[in-house]
């Protein structure tokens, strides 16, 4: 095999074949700072790590006259490589956004009325600490809820919640990718990465990788599809950019992906195309699986999915024949249906039986790097059980993350015990959770709400006190190890001093801790914390390196096949890859994925589906002036056939109503969606007037989404809402 030509010439290097192993494409990182650049001069270039989405791309901030002028990609990062997306480039406007919260604020009018008083930090801390102490005295520490989304400084916020004595930390995964994480863990004992750089055949269910940008997957896949002759089969009710670039697009009937996957397994096993050696050596439960999928014929699946049986058979054959360089990609934001966990399990099983595990172009267990830990004073573990009763209802789910929607149900019912204070860090539950009316009800029931955020999110708008956090370009954060095929360490350091009266999260946490008598647990500076982390990094002169480069990549050469020796024990009950899962059976779930046809919308209704575009990921990005230019308001995608039937014209205002709410937005009559679905983009129709570009513009999906969750992981099921659409 020869080398593979690629365009990503700055840092990608195609490596030739080594004896007996097919050629693998590898990453070699060029040094940005070899070119005689300096991080010290008046016009500085400071390496840091982007925070606009969870990808953690490395960027170089160009500072001129004290202002961040430009963010350049830092090619030393093996994940983000030499790219920075629209959001990353627009991070400058997060700092210089006129809507930013410039001082701590205490609410004066009713919640959500928008009457605020700017106060000093002392006043804000005193006020919040007093309220939190009141709740603690009256109801106990467990009556406080601590919500957060991942971020380098999230750890301090979580620790404050725990030190305060609350078991009720709830994080984003159950609004995002908890079902994938749990399904792959249940099968392989870990959540692997997908080696799209080397894969020859990729199937994606709705993982819209060319609009929902994930590094390096998005770049690897476009290179694969367009340059390296990889084949992409894509299932999605909507014609996305990924569909447009795919070799084959199937507008699958929503909620039936599991039937497609089961039929693929059926074909592969029936035609003996699975990897017999791998299955025998590393998996358990194959016979049960073979027996179980006998019922799931391609002809049956055609009726469920609307994908022709002959195509399912052909795809299954091509998929198995391309193994081990073929994969069924897992995706993120995998919270769609109530059977989500089982659908992801089926994907994991399909991947397992073709033997792509730990292979070039297949699924690869993540390599990790050690990092030092700052030793802080430990606190007593909170005694109360969690309010979401996770152990009882979701025994397999990640305890530390909680289960968001079940938690909200329990808070609203007051059972098993009341929650009266709600602290939120870097999250907007008003838009992140479905059924905004319920969230508002939850807000109503709170004696106290405190929000820490860079901007006035809808959640902050309903808070009693808002603590303005410094933007990422104004902060130094803990060091992050990014596990992956190419593990790396990234570091975020302060680029410019805060331009407003804001603080990094650690200092906000310390301000509260001091007044709550918890100072001893937070008796350190960010510098001390980071220094401890640097100490155990496998990097010579770690601190100097990280300050100069912002990132360190382990090696350009990923190692494959470490787990492929007969003595390797997978972190599962049997120590093998569990096709049949006894653990699931014991917990009362199907040990093999069982298909149940999803309820389809009645004739006068549509299924509401969600998605992303490349320039907005989170609800807060639509208010970034450089991104907002691309889409000033969201609209409702509807197929011309039903639109004609309903008399809806392109651009007309329509009312979209579900059982929990209704919104008005403009219709986009488009061929690019199935006739039984409608679609709207996330992040518009804001209630916060300090999201001035999107305040009351378009509509928020959270208003009409109904509450439903995946039974095993508790992941919110965002595609289970049926809506009526009519001219407004």
């Amino acid at each position, binding site marked *: 095999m020869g080398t593979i030509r690629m*365009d*990503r*010439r700055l840092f990608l290097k195609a490596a030739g074949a080594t004896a007996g192993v097919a050629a693998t494409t590898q990453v070699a990182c060029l040094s940005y700072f070899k*070119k005689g650049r300096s991080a010290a001069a008046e016009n500085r270039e400071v390496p840091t790590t982007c925070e606009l989405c969870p990808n953690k791309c490395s960027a170089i901030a160009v500072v001129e006259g004290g202002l961040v*002028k*430009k*963010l*350049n*990609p830092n090619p030393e990062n093996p994940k983000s490589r*030499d*790219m*920075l*997306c*629209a959001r*990353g*480039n*627009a991070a*400058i406007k997060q700092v210089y956004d006129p809507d930013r919260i410039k001082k701590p604020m205490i609410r004066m009018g009713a919640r959500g009325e928008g009457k605020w008083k700017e106060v000093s930090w002392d006043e804000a801390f005193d006020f919040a600490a007093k309220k939190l102490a009141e709740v603690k005295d009256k109801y106990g520490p467990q009556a406080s809820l601590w919500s957060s989304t991942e971020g380098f400084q999230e750890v301090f916020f979580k620790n404050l919640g725990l030190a305060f004595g609350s078991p009720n930390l709830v994080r984003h995964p159950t609004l995002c990718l908890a079902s994938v994480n749990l399904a792959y863990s249940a099968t392989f004992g870990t959540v692997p990465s997908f080696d799209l750089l080397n894969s020859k055949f990729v199937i994606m269910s709705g993982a819209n990788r*060319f*609009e929902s*940008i994930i*590094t390096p997957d*998005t*770049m690897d896949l*476009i*290179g694969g599809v*367009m*340059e390296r002759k990889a084949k992409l089969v894509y299932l999605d009710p909507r*014609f996305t*950019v990924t*569909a*447009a*670039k795919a070799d084959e*697009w199937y*507008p699958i009937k929503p909620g039936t992906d599991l039937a497609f996957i089961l039929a693929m397994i059926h074909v592969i096993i029936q035609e003996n195309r699975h990897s017999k050696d791998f299955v025998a050596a590393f998996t358990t439960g194959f016979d049960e699986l073979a027996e179980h999928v006998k019922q799931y014929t391609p002809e049956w699946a055609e009726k469920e999915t609307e994908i022709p049986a002959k195509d399912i058979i052909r795809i299954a054959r091509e998929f198995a024949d391309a193994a081990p360089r073929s994969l069924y990609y897992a995706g993120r934001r995998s919270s769609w249906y109530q059977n989500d966990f089982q659908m992801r399990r089926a994907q994991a099983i399909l991947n397992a039986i073709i033997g792509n595990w730990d292979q070039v172009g297949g699924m690869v267990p993540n390599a990790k790097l050690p990092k030092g830990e700052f030793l802080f004073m430990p606190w007593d573990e909170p005694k109360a059980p969690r309010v979401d009763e996770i152990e009882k209802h979701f025994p397999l789910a990640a305890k530390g993350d909680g289960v968001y929607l079940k938690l909200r149900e329990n808070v609203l019912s007051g059972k098993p015990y009341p929650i009266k204070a709600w602290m939120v860090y870097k999250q907007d539950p008003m838009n992140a959770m479905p059924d905004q009316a319920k969230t508002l009800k939850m807000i109503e029931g709170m004696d106290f709400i405190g929000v820490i955020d860079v901007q006035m999110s809808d959640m902050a708008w309903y808070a009693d006190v808002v603590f303005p956090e410094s933007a990422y370009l104004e902060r130094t954060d803990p060091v992050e190890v990014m596990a992956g095929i190419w593990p790396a360490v990234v570091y975020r350091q302060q680029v410019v001093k805060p331009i407003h009266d804001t603080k990094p999260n650690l200092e906000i946490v310390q301000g509260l801790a001091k007044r709550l008598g918890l100072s001893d647990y937070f008796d350190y500076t960010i510098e001390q914390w980071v220094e401890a982390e640097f100490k155990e990094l496998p990097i010579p002169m770690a601190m100097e390196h990280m300050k100069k480069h912002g990132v360190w990549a382990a090696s350009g050469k990923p190692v494959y096949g470490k787990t492929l020796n007969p003595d390797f024990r997978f972190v599962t009950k049997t120590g093998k890859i569990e096709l049949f899962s006894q653990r699931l059976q014991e917990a009362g779930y199907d040990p093999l994925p069982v298909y149940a046809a999803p309820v389809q919308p009645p004739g006068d209704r549509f299924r509401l589906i969600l998605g992303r575009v*490349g*320039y907005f990921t989170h609800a807060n990005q639509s208010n970034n*002036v*450089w*991104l907002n*230019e*691309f889409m000033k308001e969201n609209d409702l995608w509807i*197929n*011309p056939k039903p639109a004609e039937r309903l008399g809806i014209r392109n651009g007309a205002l329509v009312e979209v109503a579900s059982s929990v709410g209704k919104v008005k937005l403009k219709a986009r009559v488009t*061929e*690019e*969606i*199935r*006739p039984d679905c409608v679609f709207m983009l996330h992040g518009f129709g804001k209630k916060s007037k300090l999201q001035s570009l999107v305040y009351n513009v378009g509509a928020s999906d959270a208003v009409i989404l109904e509450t439903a969750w995946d039974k095993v992981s508790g992941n919110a099921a965002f595609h289970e809402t049926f809506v009526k659409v009519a001219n407004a």
Partner: protein
Amino acid sequence: MAMKKKRYALVLDSRKCINCKACVVACKAENQVPVGNTRNWINEARQGEYPKLRIDFEPEQCHHCEHPSCARVCPTGATWMRKDGIVLVNYDDCIGCRYCMVACPYDARYFHEESGTVHKCTLCSHRVDKGDLPACVETCPSKVRVFGDLEDPTSRVHELLATRRYRVKEPQTGNGPQLYYLL
């Protein structure tokens, strides 16, 4: 030593464009382009009927033409071409008459309200002169644009144009555009 002749150009593999807009925002930051204006953009062509559909994206900006009609109509000579082919506007000489905006076949120019002059893509000549890539080229996740010197036979742009089929937009204008779209 005699300076070697240079001719900068962009070769674009539009098939790889995912319309993520990174190039547009990077340019905005690098060149302080006002909100509402843009020096580069992405054309979209959507066609077909469900479920037989197609979307094509095509990034575009100033074509840095060989015979730029914008320069020909400029009454003050403010629009000029560097020896390396980059077409620039000398803001000191620009009187804001906007003839060039009319003359450009690609609508690649805009009137900069604050300064009263006409602006457009400079191919980030200030970066290029330092040996860096234009901001749009550098930031692109899928590396749609390839920047280089057509006169350099070892350059990637040279190689691509020698080995791949390509087209230019509006060749009938005689402008000699230097944005090459691979087919």
